[in-house]
Every structure is written in structure tokens, then in C-alpha cells.
């Protein structure tokens, strides 16, 4: 049963933005991590929203509920930043330490944008609920 119009899309959008927030916080928390389980420095991760264009074409017949964003988490291919720090326990033979290529400003800007998108989806939810409540009042005296 789907009483609230657009609730499916909005909840998928909320979930997607939540994952994005989690990935950003992980990046910020690991901005200086030089050693991970696989040996190297932490690698920045980012969220890629998969193109729903094909779905949109297929779902032209009013079942636009199928038309929701899906996402995957991908690794950023940018190479690690090498800093000369001979005393560091993770430094290589020449005294360089590989730090993850994380730009805190980039992460913060991304964080704000994810936040705004989350709020927009909340607004959709609130509007859909208002519509459903009005529809339930049809015929009331």
C-alpha cells in the first residue's frame, strides 16, 4: 500500500544521502591514516549515484516509483601525497610518508551539499503527507 505519493523516491533519496554523509565522515576521520589493513595509506572513497536515465525511459508508464537513485561506493584513484618525515614509523627507505589525498575543504563542501539534499527529501516527504491527509478528509462534514 502506498498512501503517500512519492514516498518511495523520497526514502530512497534519504538513504542515499545518509550513505554519502557516512562516507564523507569516514574520509575526514581517516585524513591522516597512513597504515590500513592492506598496508598502504587510507584511500579516499566517494559515492557515485548511478544514472537512472535508462530506468526513467523504461518507467514512462506512471510507475515512476521505479525511478529511484541507486548508488555505489568507489575508491578515489588519486595518488597518495608523499611527505618527507624520516622519523615517522611508516616512512619508506628515503624517509617519505604516504598520506591519503584528502582535501578537507572538498569534504566539507560535499558535506553541506549532502545535507541540503537530505533536507530537500524531507520536504518532499512532508508535502506528500499533507496531500495524503487532505485526501483522507474527502467527504468529511
Amino acid at each position, binding site marked *: 500500500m502506498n498512501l503517500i505519493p*512519492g514516498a518511495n523516491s523520497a526514502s530512497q533519496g534519504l538513504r542515499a544521502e545518509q550513505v554519502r554523509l557516512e562516507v564523507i565522515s569516514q574520509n575526514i576521520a581517516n585524513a591522516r591514516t597512513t597504515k590500513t589493513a592492506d598496508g598502504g595509506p587510507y584511500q579516499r572513497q566517494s559515492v*557515485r549515484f548511478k*544514472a537512472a536515465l535508462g530506468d*526513467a525511459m523504461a518507467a514512462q508508464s506512471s510507475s515512476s516509483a521505479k525511478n529511484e537513485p541507486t548508488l555505489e561506493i568507489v575508491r578515489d584513484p588519486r595518488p597518495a601525497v608523499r611527505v618527507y618525515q624520516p622519523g615517522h614509523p611508516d616512512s619508506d627507505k628515503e624517509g617519505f610518508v604516504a598520506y591519503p589525498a584528502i582535501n578537507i575543504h572538498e569534504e566539507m563542501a560535499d558535506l553541506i551539499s549532502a545535507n541540503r539534499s537530505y533536507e530537500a*527529501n524531507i520536504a*518532499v516527504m512532508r508535502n506528500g503527507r499533507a496531500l495524503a491527509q487532505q485526501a483522507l478528509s474527502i*467527504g468529511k462534514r
Partner: protein
Amino acid sequence: MTEALFGSVNYMAEKRSLDACVERQRALASNIANLETPGFRRMDVPAQFRSQLSEAVRRQDVSSMNTLRPNAVIDSSAPARTPDGNSVNLTDELVAMQDNGLEHSLHIQMISGRMSRLRAAISGRMS
């Protein structure tokens, strides 16, 4: 028998418009959810639906109104906002959603009004 009560052209048109509002809300929700999906083109109920509906009202044609369905389609007139071709503009979508909400309550009031007029006619007293 109820056809005579609820089969009038205006009443049917109200119901169709209400359907269009709900479909539009769905389309706008999917637009906002896909705000950051690369290449996503915004969807909307085409203006053509409204003109078809008013044409049917003008001709007093109930049968063609019954087959009229509001379907959200890709809005090809919207310009791309980002280099990847995404055409969703958050402000426009939110404004459209407020607009749609008001239109929805208008249709709800029209339908409820018709029902209360019928009730008044049946019972003979204004409630």
C-alpha cells in the same frame, strides 16, 4: 443510479485533476531524489494533459475523460544544469511542489463541496 449523482462532467474532471496532482507529486519526488544522479532528466506531467482535459470538458465528453490518464514523462524542455546533463533544479522543484500542494487542496475542496451539496439535497437540511 449513482452515475447521475457522480457522473457529471465537472466532477469527473475534478477527479482526473486530482489524479494528475498525485502523479505530479510522484514525479517531483523522484526528481528531487535524483538531484545528484548524473545525466538524470527531470520528469513532469505534460501540459498536454491539461489541454486534453479542458477540451473534453468543453465537448462534455465523459467517455474520453475516463480514458485520459496523467502520465509523467521526461521534460525535454528543461535545460541541463550540470555538465553531465542533469536537469533538476532544486528551487524550481520545491516551488512546483508547493504549487501542486495548493492545487491538490483546491480539487479536494471542490469534490468535498459537491458531496456536501448532494447530502444537503438528500437530507433537506444544510449541515
